[in-house]
């Protein structure tokens, strides 16, 4: 058995880590990026692309230099540590997964994603769809031999600045049917957008499709398989991101406990506090292990892949709440303030449980995949 990562990946980790550190030196810089027109720093995004960060998320057969579960986890753990807001998830993972998983992969578009020249967004979630893969109210139909999409997609990550949007829509059947789903590629100028920041500082949009013409990418079984894979890849990326955040939260809390003095001694000298830190440490080790397992089975059969990703994402939801709440509580008032970075890490950690399936969703999915 060997749990160490390869030399190549270690190099990737070091390079990307240095790159994020030099661009995300503090929380004020990050919060400035949040308020830029697109909700992220375009220059940094292009530099990241040039360095090969997006390429590391995509497999060689589709034009990238990585794409394994380990690659995804390494990059996203670092994204978590820096609280980076650039669209690595929406364009680099969700959209590229769809484009590479359809029967005829769109290599030309993927190449442009890798170069950072095209930004794509995956519009699947709807106002009445919690996290389900199949619950789709948006409709697609043929008009004069061309596909048009009608409906509203919600909470679409980076949906406001995407050049093209991949949208799931129902060709026929009832709202929650497994059959009759299609995925379409729609140009941004065919969509009405309302953009906003999320509470944890990311950019999202409500997208309204009104007879918006689109290219059919896949339908029925093929489409559903791609949606599930994209959502699973996203859940894995977010789990690794959460792991990075948890480690920062733990380190910051421990530092604070060592320096903050009350009653003439450091807060960390109280045994009741030490035991809580041990609980946090233990749970973070659990998350790290679950993310490693999910990464290693990312290219296994669909059921094995989804089982381990659901296990990781469920654990991340539960442990994330513990770490976020304990980080704030053990810091005290200081972690309630905007100026202190731990507050923003805690917010992101909590809100990760509201993306790509929460802990309940993934517990249920794990049950379905393992107990039947």
């Amino acid at each position, binding site marked *: 058995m060997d749990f160490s990562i390869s030399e190549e990946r270690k190099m990737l980790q070091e390079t990307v880590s240095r790159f994020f550190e030099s661009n995300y030196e503090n929380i004020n810089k990050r919060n400035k990026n949040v308020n830029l027109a697109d909700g992220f720093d375009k220059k940094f995004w292009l530099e990241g692309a040039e360095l090969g960060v997006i390429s590391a998320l995509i497999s060689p057969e589709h034009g990238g230099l990585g794409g394994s579960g380990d690659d995804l986890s390494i990059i996203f753990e670092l994204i978590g540590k820096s609280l980076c807001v650039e669209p690595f998830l929406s364009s680099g993972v969700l959209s590229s997964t769809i484009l590479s998983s359809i029967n005829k992969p769109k290599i030309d578009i993927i190449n442009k994603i890798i170069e950072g020249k095209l930004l794509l967004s995956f519009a699947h979630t709807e106002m009445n769809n919690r996290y389900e893969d199949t619950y789709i109210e948006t409709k697609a139909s043929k008009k004069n031999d061309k596909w048009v999409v009608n409906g509203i997609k*919600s909470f679409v990550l980076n949906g406001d600045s995407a050049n093209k949007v991949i949208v799931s829509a129902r060709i026929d059947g009832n709202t929650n049917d497994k059959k009759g789903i299609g995925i379409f590629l729609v140009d941004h100028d065919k969509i009405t957008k309302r953009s906003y920041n999320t*509470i944890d500082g990311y950019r999202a949009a*409500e997208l309204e499709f009104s007879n918006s013409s689109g290219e059919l990418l896949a339908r029925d079984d093929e489409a559903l398989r791609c949606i599930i894979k994209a959502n699973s890849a996203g859940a894995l990326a977010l789990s690794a991101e959460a792991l990075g955040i948890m480690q920062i939260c733990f380190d910051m809390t421990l530092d604070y406990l060592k320096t903050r003095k*009350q009653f003439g001694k450091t807060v960390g000298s109280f045994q*009741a*506090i030490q035991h809580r830190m041990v609980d946090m440490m233990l749970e973070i080790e659990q998350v790290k292990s679950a993310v490693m397992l999910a990464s290693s089975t990312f290219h296994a059969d669909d059921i094995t892949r989804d089982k381990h990703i659901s296990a990781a994402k469920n654990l991340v939801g539960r442990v994330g709440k513990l770490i976020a709440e304990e980080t704030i509580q053990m810091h005290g*008032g200081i972690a309630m*303030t905007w100026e202190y970075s731990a507050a*923003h890490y805690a917010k992101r950690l909590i809100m990760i449980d*509201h993306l790509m399936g929460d802990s309940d969703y993934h517990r249920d999915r794990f049950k379905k995949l393992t107990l039947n």
Partner: protein
Amino acid sequence: MNFEYSEKEKQFRSEVKQWLDDTLPKSLSDKVRKHQRLSKQDYQTFMTILNDKGWLATHWPTEYGGTGWNAIEKHIFEEEIIIASAPRIVPFGTIMLGPVLIEFGSEEQKKYYLPRILNGQDWWAQGYSEPGAGSDLASLKTRAVNMGDHYIVNGQKTWTTLGQHANKIFCLVKTDIESKPQSGISFLLIDMDTPGIEVKPIITLDGEHEVNEVWFTDVKVPIKNLVGKENEGWTYAKYLLTFERTGIAGVPYSKTALNHLKVISKKTFKDGKPLIEDPVFSSEIAELEIDLLAMEIFNLRTVSAASNGKAPGMESSLLKIKGTLVRQKTTELLRKAIGPQALPYLPEQFDEGWNDNPIGPDYAGLIAKQYFNMRKISIYGGSNEIQKNIVAKASFGL
């Protein structure tokens, strides 16, 4: 045993309810219901209405213009103003300083300050916590040097709630740095307009401005603004902190949130079915309600004992711990209930007169914000860890 309120108490409750129904401006209760940001004027409008009725100073005896209510009456009143969606009574003058002045203040101080609290001339802030003195309040460093007819104050206070509206602040200051921490502290009344005072906003993690830092540089405070005796301030501070707080468990807030949670869980769908039909989620709601039911009785037991003259001791601490955990649980389940709808945050949604369409249902925009904001309640007013220390020290004889 009888868990029922007496006829007299029931009658009192319906009187309060009716009065609030008749008198509380709808524009105010609408703002509270929508969780819009309240202006200084909003708080003052409600407190003026209460004072006109004689119901503002619920913790003062009648001779000073208070209601003279017992613990049960106070409890009923506190519940009803929350149920009516009234703004909260700003506690710093009415509930905190008033009783200290009545107990320890000079006749001159009582005569001057108490009416000004009632008629809204003064908005008080609390100057207790400091950057280095949180849980360990007695280690405070703000220094007041006695110059004969005045003090010179230097130092910094923090977490000063609504200090941006205040024209006065009561402060714990160090007047003797030689003696052990608790014994060199004095209780000073300070005019915020005095030269050398600077108020700086602290923005909290939800983007709101509720708390402040207050800086003192060579601030001149007349000797007559000392409450009680010099170096005895810690006694008054403790009196204020342990002052009978029947509302500490926040039961009515949790009840309102629980009802809201049930309504939302019926409207929200999971996999095509109402969320309330999900066996795991509905079990979580049920267990929350079971905790809350028990806590309400625990709270009433304490309130009832207090109305018979038994000062609550460790019960206040236990209720504070459980009360904050239950209330935080309501915000957590609300957040979970709405799933991805919790993501969008439109800060302008909570401004007065905002008329745009929210993203998703109108209640969604508040929920994550509230969850994060409510992390404070297990930290402030003596963190839950400190409450546990208090209980363990007072009760176990270990």
